[in-house]
């Protein structure tokens, strides 16, 4: 199975691990990630203004390229997933944005939201299946108590992201179970880590990350997993509680016995 793949800026640099482990695991699980050629940065945040067009075009280009290849578009970074999925929804459902974006791009065939945007975790859940993943695990992470940290970007707005129950998600918990570890459910797993605010308002971000890590360790988590480089940075940087944070792909690669290779 071949998929178009959008890594995003951070995965080429500070979050190389997130990317490398994902590619290795994908290969082992029997699907191929074809990186979109000449992809451009998604912008990091979805442009909320209903009159913003230019800031959405890089996502549309990536989406259109996947469409032309007839492939689903796989994302990994929470922010890229959030931005691209929302722009895709605009292209599908908002006449004004679709019309103006296509006017800019002058594509041979106008793009109208045809591509399916799939997060790597959704691919594991819906295409491979967690039961199947469990069978492929060679080094189960038995005994590890892992808290899933979702953050906001994957879950909200749930009407568009349609990733999981925004208040009581379970995809990452099911993922953790498939790897043989024990998920730790804690209430702050869908609360914001502070996001971009950590650049200028460091105390504020720290405060928020403290709540998250304290809640997670209070419920017995030994470590956290995330899909987002920024969450990773904030949780590592700001939180006073010393709790290790991993990309979910790293644990996946470990359980699949690929960690050394990658």
């Amino acid at each position: 199975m071949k998929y178009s793949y959008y890594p995003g800026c951070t995965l080429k640099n500070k979050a190389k691990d997130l990317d490398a482990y994902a590619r290795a695991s994908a290969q082992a699980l029997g699907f191929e990630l074809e990186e979109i050629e000449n992809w451009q940065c998604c912008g990091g945040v979805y442009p909320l203004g209903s009159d913003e067009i230019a800031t959405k075009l890089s996502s549309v280009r990536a989406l259109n390229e996947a469409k032309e290849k007839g492939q689903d578009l796989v994302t990994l970074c929470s922010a890229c997933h959030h931005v691209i999925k929302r722009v895709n929804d605009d292209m599908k459902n908002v006449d004004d944005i679709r019309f103006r974006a296509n006017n800019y791009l002058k594509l041979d065939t106008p793009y109208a939201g045809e591509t399916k945007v799939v997060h790597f975790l959704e691919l594991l859940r819906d295409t491979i299946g967690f039961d199947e993943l469990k069978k492929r695990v060679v080094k189960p992470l038995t005994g590890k108590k892992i808290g899933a940290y979702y953050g906001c970007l994957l879950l909200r707005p749930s009407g568009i992201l349609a990733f999981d129950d925004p208040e009581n998600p379970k995809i990452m918990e099911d993922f953790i179970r498939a790897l043989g570890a024990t998920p730790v459910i804690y209430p702050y797993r869908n609360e914001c880590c502070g996001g971009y605010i950590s650049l200028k308002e460091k105390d504020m971000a720290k405060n928020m990350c403290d709540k998250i890590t304290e809640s997670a360790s209070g419920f017995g988590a030994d470590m956290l997993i995330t899909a987002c480089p920024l969450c990773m940075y904030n949780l590592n940087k700001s939180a006073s509680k010393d709790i290790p944070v991993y990309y979910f792909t790293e644990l996946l690669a470990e359980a699949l016995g690929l960690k050394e290779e990658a």
Partner: protein
Amino acid sequence: MSMSHGKNQAEQIREISGTNPLKCMKCGKCSATCPAFNEMDIKPHQFVSYVANNNVEELVKSESLWKCLSCFACVERCPRDVKPGKIIDAARQLVVRERGGSYLTADEIPELLDDETPQQLLVSAYRRYKR
């Protein structure tokens, strides 16, 4: 005149955000939800009523513009589908679209960075803070 200016800006905010603040039933669930509540001078439920009442002069000067995380918790939980998070973002847009309204300048950046700062943080912050 300041009143008409205020009204103009409120209209622009409604337009950019694509929201209807009149749908608000003043339940306060947005403010009850907001993780940045304590950092804000004007609170999420007030964004909505300010824009509904065409009284946004204080709002566009507010610190809250730079404290909202766009985490969308208020949008997700709002029982009336008002989307306070989009309203505050539209107010922020108004400010950064005006010359010199940026909350972040390039020369500030180096001292804010460390070895691990991900690109994503810079890109996001830049898009939020600056035109």
